[in-house]
């Protein structure tokens, strides 16, 4: 990878895409796969434990579980989708919890890898959201009306339609899932790379640096810690943005007129 050699000084191997490839643990299973399974167990366990004995007057655990659910229901689904929000809340809540747990893995000691920085996982999630909003739209209006509404915005002059129809179609059907998946992937990828640069750079300066470099390494570590806190913010924000956009796309597919 030429980028790696570009950033590398003498002796220091700068982190690059190679750091996102993990060796097999056993039979083709790698660390990101294990993390995904772990995240499913955590999400399931959280909601099972907190929702097991649901009471009218909630216990503390039940309150914790319900506040995540309520955040997605009131903060995302109801605001974005409107009166029909109820049937999408389970999907959106599961999506939010799953993405959030996988992102947070990036800053948890020992795990320290956001599994969403492997493109396969966000791609699958984006595909699911794409199928959902298209299915909802086609089911509601029929294929013809749905496509017409997607491609033709109201109140535009006729002469511009030949340009506008392919553009609108391309924008809604093709770039939407692409940007949805890539946004999550690239955020996690860039964030993890940033942490690697500061921590591995500081490590190299401390252990192998000549002259004054070992004394400068604390600055790299302080930046690493600061960036870790910044990463925590980005990881929560990206999980929120992922469900918010999914909800908005569903809302767009359900809307009667623009």
């Amino acid at each position, binding site marked *: 990878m*030429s*980028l790696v*050699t*570009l*950033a590398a000084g003498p002796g220091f191997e700068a982190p*690059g*895409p190679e750091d996102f490839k993990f060796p097999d643990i056993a039979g083709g299973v790698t660390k990101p796969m294990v993390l995904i399974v772990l995240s499913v167990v955590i999400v399931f366990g959280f909601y099972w434990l907190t929702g097991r004995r649901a009471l009218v007057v909630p216990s503390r655990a039940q309150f914790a579980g319900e506040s995540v659910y309520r955040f997605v229901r009131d903060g995302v689904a109801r*605001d*974005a989708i409107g009166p029909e929000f109820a049937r999408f809340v389970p999907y959106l809540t599961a999506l939010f919890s799953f993405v959030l747990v996988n992102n947070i893995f990036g800053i948890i000691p020992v795990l320290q890898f956001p599994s969403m920085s492997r493109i396969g996982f966000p791609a699958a999630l984006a595909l699911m959201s794409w199928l959902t909003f298209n299915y909802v739209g086609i089911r509601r209006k029929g294929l013809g009306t749905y496509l017409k509404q997607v491609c033709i915005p109201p109140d535009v002059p006729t002469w511009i339609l030949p340009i506008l129809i392919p553009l609108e179609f391309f924008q809604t059907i093709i770039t939407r899932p692409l*940007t949805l998946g*890539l*946004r999550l*992937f*690239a*955020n996690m*990828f*860039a964030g993890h790379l940033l942490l690697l640069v500061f921590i591995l750079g500081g490590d190299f300066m401390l252990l192998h640096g000549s002259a004054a470099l070992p004394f400068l390494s604390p600055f790299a570590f302080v930046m690493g810690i600061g960036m870790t806190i910044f990463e925590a913010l980005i990881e929560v*924000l990206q999980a*929120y*943005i992922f469900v*918010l*956009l999914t909800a*908005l796309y569903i809302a767009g597919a359900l809307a009667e007129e623009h």
Partner: protein
Amino acid sequence: MALAALDGTLNLVGYGLSAIGPGIGVGLIFAAYVSGVARQPESRNLLQPIAILGFALAEALALFGLVLAFVL
């Protein structure tokens, strides 16, 4: 005098250039959000998802640049 050899790609320079636009865009979005909330504090709940959505859309461009810098 020997000139320092620089090998690698121009991709990173291109990525740096492509990050200018989204950077300005994100700044404008939050500037508008802040002044909107300052003028009318009760509109905060309405404006927040819109601002974050705009931020996400603008930021996506910068991240595409990053991905392309590694892919190309």
